[in-house]
């Protein structure tokens, strides 16, 4: 038997299946969604790296941004953190945790009409500064708050 011919037929049918999946929209939709997630920013280990990935450069300090959260969090697995910005045209908010394995925890894109006031809950491995990065009117601003953690959130 001609084995080479068998192989060619097999690989041919595999390619056919792939094409079928793409045609059915099964693969393309997943790839499209993966592309939307800012992987380099979320995998950045250092502050400079994360800011660069977010296109923030060197953000300025601002008194108009407030981070709400506990001063001491008993359970690092669930730390409530809120960010509120009084800056006009706030269009983007990101929460970064300095001592987590990857600094960026979450980012929010706010279309016009959405208030610059978001709250969520994050995990913290240890006591750390929590940063709120805000983009308003095309410029980046950043403030920080230290949250002490008595029980880390990464031990499971």
């Amino acid at each position, binding site marked *: 038997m001609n084995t080479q011919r068998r192989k060619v037929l097999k690989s041919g049918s595999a390619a056919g299946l792939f094409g079928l999946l793409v045609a059915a929209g099964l693969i393309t939709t997943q790839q499209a969604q993966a592309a939307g997630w800012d992987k380099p920013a979320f995998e950045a280990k250092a502050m400079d790296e994360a800011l660069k990935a977010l296109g923030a450069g060197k953000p300025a300090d601002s008194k108009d941004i407030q981070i709400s959260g506990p001063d001491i969090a008993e359970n690092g697995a669930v730390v409530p953190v809120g960010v509120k910005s009084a800056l006009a045209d706030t269009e983007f908010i990101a929460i970064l945790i300095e001592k987590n394995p990857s600094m960026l*925890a979450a980012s*929010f894109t706010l279309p016009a009409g959405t208030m610059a006031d978001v709250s969520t809950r994050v*995990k913290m491995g240890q006591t750390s500064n929590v940063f709120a990065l805000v983009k308003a009117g095309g410029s980046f601003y950043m403030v920080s708050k230290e949250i002490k953690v008595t029980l880390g959130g990464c031990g499971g």
Partner: protein
Amino acid sequence: MAGPMRIRAASNGTETEVKILMSHDMETGQRKDASGALVPAHHITELTATHNGRVVLAAQFGPAVSKNPYLQFKFAGGAKGDKVNVSWVDNKGDKRTDEVVVA
């Protein structure tokens, strides 16, 4: 598959406050199981909220967002009876969409 989200949207006439509680493990990829093997990361990556079809919030989550993520935000406008739709997708391609009527 993930369970349904619990969503509340309340309007005070000028703005609508939305509170979302998702049901997701949010595995970080740092944790080890009993045999010492790393548990692969499994977390929500993107979330989109729409009000009557218009996007009011687009969020991206990393693994540092807590298990069963909670999210709260506000947008201008929104009246009782309007629809707020929230959908998320995770890093394994699982997705979930839920809708709530503004109260």
